[in-house]
């Protein structure tokens, strides 16, 4: 299979403009003849659904939550980047582009990233017009702050609830179209199959999570906006329901899966406290602007933090990276926290935690300023841990947060299946091997508001699609597949709950394919996963019925897919004999412990083709070319 990314030629500044001009248009009167399915209602899905409907397409939008407003984009705290240069501090589209390519450790496509930086400007305009209550200066203009990995202030925010406010903006735009009859919204519906007719994506099969009904939906194109797969680790900052199922089932129908091992570990999360733990909570990395990260200099120092004098503290990020200090990118901060804990200098009961200390910032700025900036985060921390961060330093530890990998897409955001588009975190994205803070919201909205609505028109105008409805045999076959899986789960009648298997898988993946990886560990995991998967299918206990609201059954399907994905992640990590961004292979590091890339051999996107469960997938490579930002070793010293 030849991977054609369909990158336009010419100077990078004008590629998107030219491409837009060259794309075919659908006559306004004809748009209503086309039906588009959008799966997922987060920033990418809601913005795409609303925009496609505004253009005149008929849209059906699906989400597994009880309302489109619940999608996990809502939990993003820190902010959204845009190259507005409102602070007059030297920002530009080119600088945002440069920072993103560099931050991604040179494993992203330059053209996509440049387009993202260009569109960032429009996103802020759109969101402000929708009424998103961004932070303001007294003069009424928009306020910005700096954010992990950036030396300019380009992050727009709405207190610590930026994701919530942006999602509500997109959700309201979506509901406006629901009210206008342009979008048919299907909450509490889970996509379980992608349906192909003549090699093109022509619909999906869903399960109504309340009635258990298995339903077919036909369309002219399908957009997947179903988020990331971080929950393969069981413990992550994702919502409990976040899952890989939609993109995984599309992968099994032929869409290539790119860079599955590129997962991001976020440095500032509340540490694990016990076995019962069901999720990890992120504390916005904006806290690193004013908080100082440290551990005791001595191993096993169990004194209270305020009893440890200044000279016996190790502010390890400030020490190792004097120019970026506590603001180094996420992968660097996470790895260093793990390293000091592995040395036995971690804090808290488990020893897996480092201090994030606001003492100096409170002395310098006063308690009120700190409350103004981070009040809700401090409250959240106190609610969860029972400790007051104004008095005692916070304890933080890295946790899985975002997945850069996802379905492979070309410049038009179309997967290897014609008519199947993948947007937001679900695609392999513009972030390369590591995403910079405040860039996920930007990418989700760029894809949904400003990219896919154009590129899908080009496809629909040129595709000459025959009429297909749900009576087509392909839908029958997919429905049968779904019904069989439901039946199979209910008939196993094993002894262990779905969650117990999920925990076991998560621990294995965290240990061997988490923050740092080795060939030996990955081989061990690759041997172990198929056996665990086999046990899952033999011994899982799913009670109740298929024609009911059955949360165990929902989870079982998702965990089954995580078992298959986990194997691919390890394979991808083993195949990539280098360290880059979030992918750190212990064998490949510089003498001072930094990631050692191998541009001569691994400057490509690894796109995997599914060949059957337990079968060796086939690797396809899309070479990456860097015409503008020349690969260098990232240095934040």
């Amino acid at each position: 299979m030849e991977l054609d990314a369909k990158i336009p030629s010419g100077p990078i500044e004008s590629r998107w403009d030219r491409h837009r001009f060259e794309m075919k248009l659908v006559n306004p009167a004809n748009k209503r003849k086309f039906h588009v399915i959008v799966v997922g209602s987060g920033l990418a899905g809601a913005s795409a659904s609303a925009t496609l409907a505004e253009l005149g397409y008929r849209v059906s939008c699906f989400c597994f939550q009880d309302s489109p407003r619940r999608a996990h984009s809502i939990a993003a705290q820190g902010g959204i980047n845009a190259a507005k240069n409102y602070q007059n501090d030297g920002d530009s589209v080119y600088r945002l582009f440069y920072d993103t390519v560099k931050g991604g450790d040179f494993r992203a496509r330059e053209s996509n990233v440049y387009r993202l930086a260009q569109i960032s400007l429009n996103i802020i305009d759109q969101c402000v017009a929708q009424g998103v209550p961004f932070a303001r200066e007294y003069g009424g203009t928009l306020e910005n702050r700096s954010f992990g990995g950036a030396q300019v202030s380009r992050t727009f925010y709405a207190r610590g609830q930026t994701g919530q406010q942006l999602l509500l903006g997109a959700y309201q735009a979506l509901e406006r179209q629901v009210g206008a009859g342009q979008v048919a919204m299907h909450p509490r519906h889970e996509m379980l199959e992608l349906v192909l007719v003549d090699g093109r994506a022509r619909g999906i099969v869903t399960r109504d999570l309340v009635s258990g009904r298995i339903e077919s939906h036909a369309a002219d194109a399908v957009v997947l906006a179903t988020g990331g797969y971080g929950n393969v680790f069981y413990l992550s900052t994702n919502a409990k329901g976040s899952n890989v199922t939609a993109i995984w089932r599309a992968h099994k129908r032929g869409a290539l899966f790119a860079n599955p091992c590129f997962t991001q570990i976020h440095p500032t999360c509340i540490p694990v406290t016990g076995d019962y733990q069901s999720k990890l909570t992120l504390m916005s990395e904006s806290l690193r602007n004013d908080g100082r990260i440290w551990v005791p200099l001595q191993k096993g120092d169990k004194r209270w933090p305020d009893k440890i004098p200044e000279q016996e503290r190790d502010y390890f990020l400030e020490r190792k990276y004097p120019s970026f200090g506590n603001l180094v990118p996420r992968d660097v901060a996470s790895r260093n926290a793990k390293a000091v804990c592995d040395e036995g200098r971690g804090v808290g009961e488990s020893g897996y935690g480092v201090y994030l200390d606001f003492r100096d910032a409170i002395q310098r700025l006063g308690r009120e300023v700190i409350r103004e900036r981070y009040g809700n985060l401090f409250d959240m921390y106190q609610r969860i841990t029972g400790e007051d961060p104004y008095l005692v330093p916070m304890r933080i530890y890295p946790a899985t947060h975002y997945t850069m990998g996802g379905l492979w897409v070309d410049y038009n955001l179309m997967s290897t299946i014609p008519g199947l588009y993948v947007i937001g975190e679900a695609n392999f994205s513009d972030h390369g091997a590591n995403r910079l803070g405040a860039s996920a919201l930007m990418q989700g909205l760029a894809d949904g508001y400003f990219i896919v609505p154009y590129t899908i028109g080009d496809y629909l105008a040129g595709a000459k699609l025959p009429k297909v409805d749900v009576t087509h045999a392909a839908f029958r076959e997919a429905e049968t597949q779904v019904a069989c899986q439901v039946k199979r789960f209910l008939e196993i009648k094993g002894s262990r709950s779905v969650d117990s298997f999920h925990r076991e898988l998560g621990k294995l993946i965290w240990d061997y394919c988490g923050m740092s990886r080795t060939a030996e560990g990955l081989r061990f995991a690759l041997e172990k996963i198929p056996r665990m998967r086999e046990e899952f299918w033999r011994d899982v206990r799913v009670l109740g019925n298929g024609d009911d609201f059955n949360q165990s059954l929902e989870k079982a399907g998702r965990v089954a897919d995580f078992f298959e994905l986990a194997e691919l992640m390890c394979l991808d990590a083993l195949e990539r004999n280098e360290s880059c961004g979030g992918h750190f292979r212990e064998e490949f590091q510089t003498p001072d412990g930094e990631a050692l890339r191998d541009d001569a051999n691994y400057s490509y996107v690894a796109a995997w083709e599914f060949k059957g469960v337990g079968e060796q997938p086939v690797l396809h490579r899309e070479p990456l070319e860097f015409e503008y930002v020349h690969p260098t070793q990232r240095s934040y010293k």
Partner: protein
Amino acid sequence: MNLILHIWRQRNHADSGRMVRYEVNGINPDMSFLEMLDVLNESLIVKGEEPVAFDNDCREGICGTCGFMINGVAHGPERGTTVCQLHMRHFKDGDELYLEPWRARAFPVIRDLAVDRSAFDRIIAAGGYISVSTGSAPEANSIPVPKEVADQAMDAAACIGCGACVAMCPNASAALFTGAKITHLGVLPQGQPERYRRVISMVAQANAEMFGSCTNIGECEAVCPKEIKLEVIARMNRDFIRASWAARDGAFRDDAAEVGKLPLAGARR
């Protein structure tokens, strides 16, 4: 810590439902309330009993998916806290807790503690937005918004749509939810063109969904996990009266065609 739980079990909307008594032992005070229910469910599955259904997703208090009554209080005893962020350290060993779903005619029970809150989405679809199609926005800084106004909008926009306000209200009124959106959009300059149309349509929809009327009791504000202020209801009522006059003056075309006939929120009976 050991607890006795009485949980509402109801198979589906047609089932009549009943309270069932459970004992949970060995609860760690650092657990969240939902993690405690996970422990109960794990033990039920082992025993071959179907687990208790409850909606939840982000488990960090922002998505608005979770929520049920604990001893008659929406989201339980802690102020400004969703049930997923409520930790067991706030309870005592031996406590006896009664868990029930949101009870409101507009929120039919789906199963056990899970209810259908799609009426909230329909209230938003009726007018809880600013009509600005993608691409037609002016440059962001061309609309200055005083900091105080932005803050006021943000306070109201913090609503997570969980439904606790409705569940706690003796009238099952959606006034706090509806008022929060009307305030968020209504104080901002961007929201002015549709301000009157919005309040008329949204209030009409809330009535059509069979939410009750507001009689200024204030239980909603007391249980709101985001501490939305009662003031948003006053704003909604004020805008509603103004809108009714504006419509008579022909200031805007009223699509609901109900102006003058609709009961005022807060003065229905």
